[in-house]
């Protein structure tokens, strides 16, 4: 690796030296308490898949260039130089980490390994070895934000077709206006995803509740964050913020996408509107009596998977449980659950990568957890989690069904 490249990478590292990064880089006592917190380590018991193992892969390089101990006494902390081999290990560490932050709960200092990995990801961008898939996705999302004018009509016309499906589900007389877009004066802006399910089911629910809403032109998910590029992350998130401000909405509602929720809700600072997850909104509608569901409609055993970014990193724990509680008669918690819940292995952009075998292996603990409940239906509220749970299901040949929470609600509305 030549000097120039090393310079590029170390400059990028420097640009990520925020306050929390400084603490997390220096304060680990290597006590090992986080060792088996990571679902990847559970499935593939190798040191490099432990939280502290990942962090040390980064820290060893970091010490070499940024700390006197690493510069003058590399042996003291096993500091190492940047080379292709080291960057290979950095990539393995960063892109096998879902950023679920389960390790953060189990560290006596609350070290956020997922956050440390954002530095690792930035180094990979500098080294031009970041996963190509994520680069493409992030660039497309940025491009979409820049020239949305060109794509609006195409999108609007297909959404028009979706309105007919919504009309059918709701039993209304006309499809018109069931999925409003560019709706100035709406109180809610809803950001979905590319797939029809992420638009139709919420549309059914919003209409049933008589909400004044507007569908965003942008998908909620943030590939800039998965890629680890702070500028693209900011730009992609701002597309929706701008749209929300333009329409003057009071609330931005995020689809079942954990990352999108965490970023829009918790990572952008104060915004002139409220940010909620669709799960919180459904719970609110139910409690306010704006929608009704067929109580106890589902009698088979059901469990709920807490998406990491919605639960421990987002704060939405009880809402989904209340919703499921109304619909299902046999609800079974996984052990552990809520902030201690195991990550399914689908976060951090990992479902976009060519790594199915790895994801099946790293999903072992989720398989075990689900099997232990005996549930036949696994409900969750995150697109990535559903994809990964499906991968686990087929990987281990499990006899369960995986469902979105919105789908469950939309299918069981009392209209």
């Amino acid at each position: 690796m030549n000097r120039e490249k090393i310079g590029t990478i170390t400059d990028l590292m420097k640009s990520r030296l925020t306050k929390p990064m400084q603490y997390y880089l220096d304060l680990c006592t290597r006590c090992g308490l986080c060792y088996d917190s990571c679902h990847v380590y559970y499935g593939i018991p190798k040191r490099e898949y432990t939280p502290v193992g990942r962090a040390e892969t980064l820290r060893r390089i970091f010490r070499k260039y940024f700390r006197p101990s690493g510069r003058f006494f590399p042996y003291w902390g096993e500091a190492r130089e940047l080379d292709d081999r080291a960057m290979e290990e950095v990539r393995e560490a960063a892109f096998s980490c879902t950023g679920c932050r389960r390790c953060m709960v189990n560290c006596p200092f609350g070290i956020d390994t997922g956050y440390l990995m954002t530095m690792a990801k930035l180094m990979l961008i500098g080294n031009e070895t970041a996963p190509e898939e994520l680069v493409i996705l992030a660039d497309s999302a940025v491009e979409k934000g820049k020239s949305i004018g060109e794509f609006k009509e195409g999108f609007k016309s297909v959404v028009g077709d979706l309105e007919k499906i919504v009309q059918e589900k709701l039993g209304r007389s006309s499809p018109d206006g069931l999925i409003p877009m560019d709706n100035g004066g709406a109180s809610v802006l809803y950001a979905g995803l590319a797939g029809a399910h992420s638009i139709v089911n919420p549309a059914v629910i919003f209409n049933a509740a008589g909400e004044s809403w507007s569908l965003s032109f942008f998908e909620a998910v943030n590939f800039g964050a998965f890629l680890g590029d702070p500028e693209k992350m900011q730009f992609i998130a701002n597309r929706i913020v701008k749209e929300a401000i333009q329409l003057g909405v009071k609330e931005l509602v995020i689809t079942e996408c954990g990352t999108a929720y965490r970023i829009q809700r918790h990572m952008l600072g104060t915004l002139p509107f409220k940010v909620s997850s669709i799960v919180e909104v459904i719970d609110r509608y139910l409690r306010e009596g704006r929608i009704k569901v067929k109580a106890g409609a589902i009698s088979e055993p059901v469990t709920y998977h807490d998406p990491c970014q919605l639960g421990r990193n987002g704060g939405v724990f009880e809402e989904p449980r209340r919703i499921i509680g109304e619909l299902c008669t046999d609800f079974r918690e996984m052990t552990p659950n809520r902030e201690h819940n195991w990550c399914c292995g689908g976060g951090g952009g990992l479902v976009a990568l060519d790594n199915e075998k790895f994801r099946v292996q790293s999903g072992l603990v989720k398989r075990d957890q689900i099997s232990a409940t005996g549930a036949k239906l696994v409900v969750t509220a995150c697109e990535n989690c559903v994809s990964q749970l499906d991968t686990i299901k087929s990987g281990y040949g499990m006899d369960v069904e995986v469902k979105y929470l919105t789908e469950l609600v939309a299918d069981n509305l009392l209209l």
Partner: protein
Amino acid sequence: MLDLFAYIVMVPMVYLAFILFVAGMVWKLVRVFRSPSITGTLGLFPRELPRPLAVARDAFLVPSAFRKDRVFWVFIVAFHAAVLFLILGHCELVWNIPALQVIPHRVFLGAGSVGMVMMIGTLYFLFRRFGAPVREISVPEDYFLLIILFLSILFGSILHLVDRLGIGAMHVPVQAYREYFAGLLTLNPRLPVMVSYSPHYAVMVIHIFFSNLFIMLFPFSKMIHAVFAFFAYSTARR
């Protein structure tokens, strides 16, 4: 030759350790405070307690260790509590602190038990590192710090216990120590005869040597966790 070494350890090295410690800490803290803050929060949920209480709980009760490894937790808590007593004990060696004498005692709180707890603690931390899986993540720094610390505590404890138990009539009055420290503090260093001619002067030199070493390494090693931990807790509970 040995006299010179003893003098270097007892005077210039103490100053050096102090300077490195203060400068290192200031440098570390200034660098952190000048680093950019982040937008948004890295906090965890749920947030049952108000932030200061949550931070205090994380710091003093170490719940993550309690959940994962009960034995380790006992040692962590005992060891760190002992560190507190130890610091107070050393302060009493330097100054007369009437507030601490509400319960009258000979100098060094705990009558030697503090050192015992810390020695057992460091040995436990050390042996814990010899086994999997902690061995796989340990680096020389981890072993060196623990060994230096153990030696420092060992010789410190000998110093104290020999005196307390009157073994071989070894005794250094507290007053002599206070004179020594006062000299250091007023930049007028002197080694009172009661100190330098005491029969266990060698033990004292060794104790101070290892302690100096540990203090010098403090800001530049993982020992910085003693300070950064609180920033990190505060981040996690924000």
